[in-house]
């Protein structure tokens, strides 16, 4: 059984439990509130999940989530046309991803360290870029295109679905996806089959940086205020979302669907705790427990699946060997 299925089961259980605690939890109003902010987190989690499947980490996504929109806003204040500022801002995300990948691959150091350094550097750059206090949001930026509030959902939900669709096709249906899984599963084996594993990893680093910046842009566009503290601790929450959704820390395992469910689960957990009139300070305790329980549950489900397969195989082998002994006995009798 696939690990993301156990995540989905947990999702249903948790949603049901909060619904019992307060039936307004699944009211259109609450879904509208939660799903208004969730797409940003899902987009980051998708980038992290793909990178983790290729066998690497990115701790700098929270900082990139702030740096990219801050760059856009400041560029617009400098008189740069909004769409050009958006393009330049997004290329900062790409550049950070490239630097993360380059340092990790070229110097052969763990991506955990390379991107930990980048976490501090990018956050520092964001604060420096504010020049002391957060700048006002320039309304020449086309923010409605990304965050317009429809009846229940925001435009960001559709952007997220677009990202998830393209990423899903790439990861699960294209040969590039096959290379990403094989690179994360066993780098040595993949390169012996002619996969350029360094290029694959570099692609995933860049994609992750780009998506983190894109998601940060959506958040800034939604709240219409570029804050240097935006995305603080988001790197850990994104890894948590991926892991809750069945992405392996060791690479080679995971799905886009799982990472998205993981991110949604975290946001509804937050909302559910508030709706159940529990002190909001318990959110982190809840998240911590969720991470541990979900990974234990995932591991248990996967092991159970494997054991069933092995049991079947063992039984088949036994039947085989019985047949063989009967056959050879028959032959000796003749």
């Amino acid at each position, binding site marked *: 059984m696939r690990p993301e299925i156990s995540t989905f089961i947990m999702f249903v259980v948790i949603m049901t439990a909060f619904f019992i605690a307060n039936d307004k939890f699944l009211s259109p109003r609450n879904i509208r509130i939660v799903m208004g902010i969730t797409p940003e987190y899902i987009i980051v989690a998708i980038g992290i999940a793909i990178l983790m499947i290729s066998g690497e980490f990115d701790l700098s996504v929270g900082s990139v989530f702030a740096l990219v929109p801050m760059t856009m806003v400041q560029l617009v204040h400098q008189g740069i046309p909004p769409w050009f500022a958006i393009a330049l801002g997004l290329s900062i995300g790409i550049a950070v991803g490239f630097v993360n990948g380059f340092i990790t691959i070229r110097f052969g150091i763990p991506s955990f360290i390379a991107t930990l350094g980048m976490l501090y550097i990018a956050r520092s750059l964001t604060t420096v870029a504010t020049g002391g206090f957060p700048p006002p949001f320039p309304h020449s930026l086309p923010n409605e295109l990304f965050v317009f509030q429809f009846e229940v959902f925001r435009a960001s939900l559709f952007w997220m679905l677009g990202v998830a669709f393209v990423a899903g096709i790439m990861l699960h249906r294209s040969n590039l996806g096959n*290379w990403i899984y094989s690179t994360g599963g066993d780098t040595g084996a993949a390169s012996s089959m002619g996969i350029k594993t360094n290029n694959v990893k570099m692609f995933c680093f860049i994609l992750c940086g780009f998506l983190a910046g894109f998601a940060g842009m959506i958040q800034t566009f939604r709240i219409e205020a570029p804050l240097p503290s935006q995305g603080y601790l988001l790197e850990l929450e994104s890894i948590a979302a991926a892991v809750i959704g069945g992405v392996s820390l060791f690479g080679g395992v995971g799905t886009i669907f799982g990472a998205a469910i993981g991110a949604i689960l975290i946001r509804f957990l937050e909302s559910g705790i508030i709706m159940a009139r529990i002190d909001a300070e318990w959110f982190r305790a809840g998240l911590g427990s969720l991470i541990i329980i979900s990974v234990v549950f995932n591991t248990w489900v996967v092991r159970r699946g494997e054991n069933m*397969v092995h049991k079947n195989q063992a039984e088949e082998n036994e039947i085989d060997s019985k047949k063989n002994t009967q056959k050879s006995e028959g032959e000796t009798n003749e």
Partner: protein
Amino acid sequence: MSSENIIECKDLNKYYSGVHALKNLSLKIKKDTVVGLIGDNGAGKSTLIKILSGAHAPDSGHIYFEGNEVKFKSTKEAMNLGIETIYQYSALIPQMSIARNIFIGREQTTFSLGSIGLMKSKSMDKAAMEALNDVELHLRSPETPVNQLSGGERQGVVIARAMYFKSKVLILDEPTNHLSVKETNKVLRFVEGLKKQGVTSIFITHNLSHVYPIADHLCVMARGEKIADLAKEDTNIDELTDLLVNG
């Protein structure tokens, strides 16, 4: 140059930081046979296969493939000619399905942009099952992850992969190491099947009893030299054991 020899080596020499790892080695490998290459650890077996698979270049000597002299610069070059090497630790990704493993790096795609395209999963699954059936490996589904297979079955998948991509020569480096007796027999059956399909195999092992039953020709190495090169009908297991132990 007789065309019935698919590979012919002449006076190969290889030094590793002053150590003479391969000494004037000459070898003829006939088409559609199983050649057992045996020798104790350090006899030069690995050096020889690294040269034949294109991983290392010899310091002197010649290699002929199907009668033409070849000088490999990479394993990819050897693979393109049809020489595929299967190393002890198989080149499979444990978490991935059998079909995806068989096609790693050589996926069948459609709607391609450059080298990236959508995988034709159904056609790859079908081809994977056929490739497995060709080596008499009957597994339930091409979607089974490789980590749910036994060691022998994994070797079978690797052999099926080499077969599918039309290898002419398969070099197997200790394919039966760390396998149970039953699994070893499975692998030996795969190798026997290769001959029928017109594939020459070079079976490297230090365990004579594994290769003896299926080999047509046996080649014994010691201290970087070939000390015996015998057709199976001209020798017996006692003589070979004696050669292996006493050099």
